[in-house]
C-alpha cells in the first residue's frame, strides 16, 4: 500500500512543485502590493487631517469585515460590470494585496504607535525633521513590533493563495484537485499537497523566527 502511494507521489511531485511555484509567485506579488498599500493606508491613519484618518479607518474596517474569497470574486467577476477585465493572475495578486493591505495597515500603525511619545518629543527637541524623526528614531524601534505579526500575515497569504483555484489558476491547490480526479485516490494527493504546504509553512516560521531573533539581539 505504501509503495502505491510513493509511486503516485513520485509521479505527481514535479507537477505539484510547479504549482507551488505559481502559489509562491502570487504570494510574493500580493505581499509586495500589500506592503506598499499598507504603508500608504497606515500613513493615512496617522495623518494630521481628520478626513484622511477617516479614509484610512474606513478602508481597514470594511476590508477586514469582508471574506478573502469575496474580495477575489469582486476583482475577478465583479469589476467586469464596470468594464475592467483583469486576467485571473492579476485579479489574484490585486485581491491578496487589497485584503492584506488592511492587515499591514494595522501592523504598521500598531508598531509606530508602540514607540513611546517621549522618543518623538526628544527628536523634535533635537530639531529633526518629520521624515528624519520617522526614519532615524521611530521606525528602528518599531521594527520588532512589526516583524512578528508580519511573518504571520505572510504565512496567511501563502495559505489564502490556494483560493485562486476558484478562478481557474493552476496553483498547487488546483493541480492537486485535478490529480484527485485523474487518480481516484483523493486522500493520497491531498496528503502530498499537505506535506508541501506544511514544509513551506514550517520553513517560513522557523527561518523568519531565527531572523527575528537576530534583529531582536541587535536592537534589544
Amino acid at each position, binding site marked *: 500500500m505504501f509503495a502505491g502511494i510513493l509511486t503516485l507521489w513520485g509521479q505527481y511531485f514535479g507537477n505539484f512543485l510547479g504549482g507551488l511555484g505559481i502559489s509562491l509567485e502570487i504570494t510574493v506579488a500580493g505581499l509586495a502590493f500589500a506592503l506598499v498599500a499598507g504603508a500608504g493606508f497606515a500613513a493615512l491613519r496617522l495623518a494630521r487631517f481628520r478626513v484622511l484618518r477617516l479614509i484610512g479607518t474606513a478602508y481597514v474596517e*470594511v476590508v477586514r469585515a469582508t471574506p478573502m474569497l469575496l474580495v477575489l470574486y*469582486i476583482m475577478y467577476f*465583479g469589476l467586469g460590470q464596470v468594464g475592467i477585465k483583469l486576467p485571473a493572475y492579476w485579479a489574484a495578486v490585486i485581491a491578496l494585496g487589497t485584503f492584506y493591505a488592511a492587515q499591514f495597515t494595522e501592523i504598521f500603525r500598531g508598531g509606530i504607535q508602540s514607540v513611546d511619545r517621549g522618543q518623538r518629543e526628544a527628536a523634535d527637541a533635537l530639531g529633526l525633521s518629520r521624515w528624519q524623526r520617522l526614519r532615524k528614531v521611530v521606525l528602528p524601534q518599531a521594527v520588532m513590533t512589526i516583524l512578528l505579526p508580519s511573518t504571520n500575515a505572510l504565512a496567511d497569504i501563502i495559505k489564502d493563495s490556494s483560493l485562486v483555484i476558484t478562478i481557474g489558476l493552476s496553483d498547487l491547490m488546483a493541480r492537486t484537485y485535478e490529480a484527485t480526479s485523474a487518480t481516484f485516490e483523493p486522500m493520497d494527493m491531498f496528503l502530498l499537497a*499537505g506535506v508541501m504546504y506544511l514544509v513551506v509553512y514550517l520553513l517560513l516560521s522557523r527561518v523568519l523566527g531565527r531572523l527575528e531573533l537576530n534583529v531582536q539581539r541587535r536592537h534589544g
Partner: protein
Amino acid sequence: MNIGFDTSQMLHGAVLTVELAAGGVGVSLVLGALGGLARSRGPRWLRWLIVGYVELVRGLPQILQLFILYFGLTQFGINLSPFTAGFIWMCFYGTGYAIEIFRAGISGVHPGQLEASTALGLSRFQSFRRVVLPQAVARMVPPLTTFVILELKNTTLLYIIGVPEIMYHANLLASNSQPLNIYLIAVGFYLVMNMTLGRLGAYVEHKMSWAKS
C-alpha cells in the same frame, strides 16, 4: 426600492451563515476549552498531540482541510454531505484556534494570584472560579471577538463545496447580471454582521474591565 434583482435569497443565505458560524463557534469553544486546559495541564503525550493538531490547523490552507474532509475521505468510502463536511471543518478549524486562545488566557494569569487566593483561605475550586477564571476571561475577550469574526468569514469557503450560504446565493445572482452590485451587497451583509460582533466584543470587554489585572 427596486434594484432589479431579488436579494431575499441572500437573506436566507445570511441566516444559514449565522447558524453555521454560531454552531461552529459553540462546538469550538467547548472543545477548545478542554484542549486548552489539556495543553497547559495535561500529560506530556497529550500536550504534544495538541501542539501537532494546532500546527496542522494553522499550517494547512483552509480549502485543503475542507477538501480533505469532503473529497479526501471518499477514498475510504466515507461520503459526507456538503453541509456535514462543512460543519465538521468549521469545528475542526475553530477548535485549533480556540485551544490557543484558552491556553494563552490561562497562562496569562500570574501564578501569584492563585497562591494569594489560597492564602486567603479559598478552596482550589473557589480560587479558580472567583480569581483565575474572571481574569483569564477578561484577557480572552478581544481574541475571542476576532475568532468569532474569523469563523463567520470562514463560512464563505463552504460555498465552494455547495453549501447555500451568502456567497452561494450571491454567485447565483451575479451570474445573471450586475455582479459588482451583487458582491457589494454581500460585502454589506458581512459588514453589518461583523461590525455588530465587533461592537458586542467591545461592550463585553468594557463590562469585564473590572477583572483586568
